[in-house]
Structure formats: structure tokens, C-alpha cells
């Protein structure tokens, strides 16, 4: 088995026991990136830099200097996360000439942990979209079926993790951009609590929803990456000074007796039959593990996407107004349209959406006093074809962008953490994801539940046929 499939903890053990060197691991990563290039998951690969760092990190390990579980582990960054001295363009033409003058806080954390940044991953332009079909960097393809989208906006991060070209990636999630590619690529993605991870050095999309988080094969790998990047940053006014619970400390604890809720008239709404079957089977697996499954009601949840559309439209348009005025032709058509459309809302529209958000948060917070997590499908459907603009949800045709938000909006609107784990495949072999939403700063609990689920199932270990070296 390729060491790339081992998971971070096992790869680290192999490195420390001399079964593989950092240079060999990085070389394997580079080879996998090349072999799976049809996905167009990367916009830039740092071959020379990565090999140079590999030599340096191997020397540290040889000298007995161990920087922790990420030491020598190949990772990748979404192209909106700053890496000092490199072009970080957020998948845009507008920022094509921009060189980051400093590392993002999360980049600095990963590098202090000894990881080797292999490259920047493809993304939807400025993260404003869910398909990663980018006119400037080229279409990113789903490794499970190259005719289909990898979702987005962190689609390259999803495809890169799914092919195991790296052990994990960073994504950014505003309306679902970590969880959506995790679901459609058959891997795991954690959206942390708003304010848990620094956004310093990350190109904003919508300030009141933007989060940075890990995308990797397993919950354990996500936990290792999350532990490296989580915590207060005095340089980012949106982070909160709240202690981080070590997600690895209790990862193996049993989950029997925990309570997980499904939302009456919502958790099962409009699902493709294969998605509903996989989600129900996942709930049954959790019940077999001793989790108590309950049903709760959240009145008004049918408007969560409406509220998300308003906020997710207004805030990016405020960011982009100067460029919309001076360089409109430098945006792709789809992103220019949503940015222009975001300017039509009134201040009252925006505030009403924020008031809805306050109301929803209070209801969900009350429920999360009684249950440990809320379970939802991550997406109602499996990966659409490239170019498909509408999806069928519950028998009605819905705009694909809005359709993608259907189940991810709850965590985005409430600021709560959520994790997407693979829970099956449809009849054509496309991955399906289940989402767990937890209370504020409950990432460790979500990772623990996801880890227990993954110990009982094997969906997160499945590899797309594109990966031939098994």
C-alpha cells in the first residue's frame, strides 16, 4: 500500500521508524499529483521548494527534533490562503499579479508544525460559487467521475485529498465550501466554529460566515490538522479567546449514550433516493454504536437558504465593489453576475436576514442543550455534471448554487461547527456525505463521533479509480 494512503498518524510512525523518508513521502506526493493531473486540482505545485523542505525536515528528524504529528507530512493550501513570497490569487484574474508578503496565520501554524506545503489548490473564483469551474484556472474535475464537478468552492482541495496526492488540505467554508467538496469527493471536511480559526491572510468572501478548516481522508487526519490551526489570534479581530479542546485526546472514546437529532420535516427533505438510503443507513450505524437518535423541530428553517443568499450576496459585493466598478471584465461571467446582483439588496434586507439568523441561532442553541449534535445530509444530491446549472430537489428544479446550500446553510448561518463524513455511494459510484452540526466550539466532539462512525464503516478509505497505485 502506498504510504500516501496510510493516514497522517501512520505515515508519521513510518517516518519516525525510518520505514520511509520525508523526501520519499514528498516524492510520492509529487508523483500522485502528476498521475491525477486530469482533475486539475492544483493551480501551482511547489516541487523544488517541497523537496528542499523535505531534506531539511528529514535532517531535523534525524537529529531527534520532532515537531509533532504533522512533521514531514505533505499538505496543500486553497489558493486564497497566503503563502509568503508566492502568488495567491484566490482563483482570479483580478489578483493574478498579487504576491503574498506574509504567511496567513494558518499557513504559519502548519509550517511551524513541520508540514510540507506541496501547492495551491484550485477553487471557484474568489470562493463565490460551488462548482470550481473557473474560467481563469480551468475546470476542476471530480476524481470519481471526471465529467462531474468536485463541488466548491474548495473543489481543488477536495479532489487533492480524495486522490491522496496530499494527506490533507485547507479549505475555506462560507456557505458550505469545505463540507460540499468533502461530500462530493468522498472525504472528510470540518467547518470549525466561527471565530475558532484565524482568517488573517485569507481572502475574505463574507466576513460574518468565513471559516478556514481541514479537508482530509478521515476525521483523525482532520483532527490533527485542526489542532495545528485552531486558536485565538490577536491579529484577527474575528477570532475568540476560548480554550481549544484537544481533539486527539478523546478521539477514541466511545459514543454510546450521546444524543443526535434529526430535524423533523427537514433532514430528509427532497433527497435523491440513494442519498436518503445512505443517510438513513448512517443513522442506523450510529444507533448501533449506542447513539440515541431523536427528532427535533426547528420552525422557520425553510427560510435558512433565503437568509444565506442575502448575506452571502451582500458581504462579497461590498468587498468587490471597487473592482466591479473598475475591472468588471476581469471576472468570470458567473461570479460577476452574483457580485453585481448582490448590490441590489437594501440595508433592511440585510438586517432582516441577520435578525433571522439571531432567531435561528437561539432555537438551535436551545436544542443543542439537549442533544450533542444535529445530523443532516451534506447535500441532497450527488455530483452534477460539469456545466449542469440546475439540480432536481424533491421533484422541483433548483438553481445548482442554491441547491448546494440547502443543508450546509444551518451551520453557516448559526456559526456552529459542522463536519461532513462520507456515508456511501449512489448507483453510479458517486460519494454521498452525512453532516453533523454541533454546539459552539464542539469540534472535538464532532470529530469523536465522526471517528467512531469511520471506525465502524469504510467509506472514507475508498479511493477513486483514477488512483491506480493502491
Amino acid at each position, binding site marked *: 500500500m502506498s504510504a500516501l494512503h496510510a493516514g497522517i498518524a501512520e505515515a508519521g510512525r513510518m517516518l519516525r521508524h525510518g520505514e520511509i523518508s520525508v523526501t520519499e513521502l514528498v516524492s510520492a506526493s509529487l508523483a500522485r499529483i502528476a498521475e491525477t493531473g486530469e482533475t486539475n486540482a492544483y493551480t501551482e505545485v511547489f516541487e523544488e521548494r517541497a523537496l528542499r523542505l523535505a531534506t531539511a525536515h528529514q535532517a531535523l528528524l534525524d537529529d531527534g527534533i520532532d515537531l509533532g504529528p504533522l512533521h514531514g507530512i505533505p499538505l496543500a493550501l486553497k489558493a486564497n490562503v497566503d503563502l509568503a513570497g508566492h502568488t495567491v490569487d484566490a482563483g482570479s484574474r483580478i489578483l493574478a499579479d498579487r504576491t503574498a508578503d506574509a504567511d496567513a496565520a494558518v499557513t504559519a501554524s502548519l509550517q511551524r508544525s513541520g508540514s510540507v506545503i506541496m501547492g495551491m489548490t484550485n477553487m471557484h473564483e474568489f470562493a463565490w460559487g460551488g462548482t470550481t469551474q473557473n474560467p481563469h484556472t480551468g475546470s476542476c474535475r471530480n476524481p470519481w467521475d471526471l465529467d462531474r464537478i468536485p463541488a466548491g468552492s474548495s473543489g481543488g482541495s477536495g479532489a487533492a485529498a480524495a486522490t491522496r496526492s496530499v494527506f490533507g488540505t485547507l479549505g475555506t467554508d462560507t456557505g458550505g465550501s469545505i463540507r460540499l467538496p468533502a461530500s462530493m469527493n468522498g472525504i472528510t471536511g470540518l467547518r470549525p466554529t466561527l471565530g475558532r480559526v484565524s482568517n488573517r491572510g485569507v481572502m475574505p468572501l463574507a466576513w*460574518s460566515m468565513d471559516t478556514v478548516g481541514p479537508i482530509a481522508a478521515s476525521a483523525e487526519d482532520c483532527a490533527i490538522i485542526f489542532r495545528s490551526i485552531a486558536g485565538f489570534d490577536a491579529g484577527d479581530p474575528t477570532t*475568540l479567546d476560548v480554550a481549544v479542546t484537544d481533539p486527539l485526546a478523546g478521539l477514541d472514546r466511545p459514543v454510546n449514550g450521546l444524543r443526535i437529532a434529526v430535524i423533523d420535516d427537514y433532514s430528509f427533505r427532497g433527497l435523491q433516493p440513494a442519498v436518503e438510503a445512505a443517510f438513513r443507513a448512517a443513522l442506523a450505524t450510529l444507533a448501533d454504536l449506542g447513539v440515541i437518535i431523536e427528532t427535533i423541530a426547528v420552525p422557520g428553517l425553510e427560510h435558512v437558504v433565503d437568509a444565506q443568499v442575502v448575506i452571502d450576496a451582500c458581504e462579497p459585493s461590498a468587498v468587490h*465593489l471597487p473592482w466591479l*466598478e473598475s475591472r468588471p471584465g476581469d471576472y468570470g461571467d458567473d461570479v460577476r453576475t452574483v457580485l453585481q446582483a448582490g448590490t*441590489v439588496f437594501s440595508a433592511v434586507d440585510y438586517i432582516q436576514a441577520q435578525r433571522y439568523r*439571531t432567531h435561528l441561532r437561539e432555537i438551535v442553541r436551545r436544542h443543542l442543550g439537549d442533544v450533542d449534535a444535529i445530523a443532516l445530509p451534506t447535500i441532497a444530491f450527488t455530483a452534477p455534471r460539469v456545466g449542469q446549472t440546475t439540480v432536481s430537489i424533491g421533484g422541483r428544479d433548483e*438553481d445548482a448554487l442554491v441547491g448546494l446550500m440547502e443543508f450546509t446553510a444551518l451551520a453557516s448561518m448559526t456559526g456552529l461547527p459542522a463536519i461532513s463524513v462520507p456515508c456511501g455511494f449512489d448507483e453510479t459510484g458517486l460519494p454521498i456525505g452525512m453532516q453533523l452540526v454541533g454546539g459552539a466550539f464542539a469540534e472535538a466532539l464532532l470529530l469523536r463521533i465522526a471517528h467512531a462512525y469511520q471506525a465502524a464503516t469504510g467509506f472514507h478509505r475508498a479511493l477513486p479509480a483514477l488512483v491506480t497505485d493502491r
Partner: protein
Amino acid sequence: MPYPNQLDRLPLTQEDASRLTPQVADWTARAARLDRWVRDNVASATPGITTVSHIVGERTA
């Protein structure tokens, strides 16, 4: 009479206008639907505060 908004001040091509028509129609309908629900169901004292600590409900000292 329609009132001017930010969109009126942006340079738009004919193609932009064609793409915007259905997008704006859908989104403004959503905003109107949401507004009606908020008026009917959300207490008037409920604020639309957007600081992170309020969003996640965390009270920092």
C-alpha cells in the same frame, strides 16, 4: 417608482443585464419572502447583530 441602488452605479454590458434579470428576480423574491417571515415570527427586540461573539453566542469577558 423604482429607487436607485448600488447596481445603477455599476458599468453593465447588455450581456450582464440579461444574466442579472433572472438572478435578481430570484434573490429579491427570496429577500421579500424572508422579510415577511421575519415580520411575522421574530420578536421586534431581536437584533441583527453580526459580531462573531454574538453569532456563536459566546460571551467573552
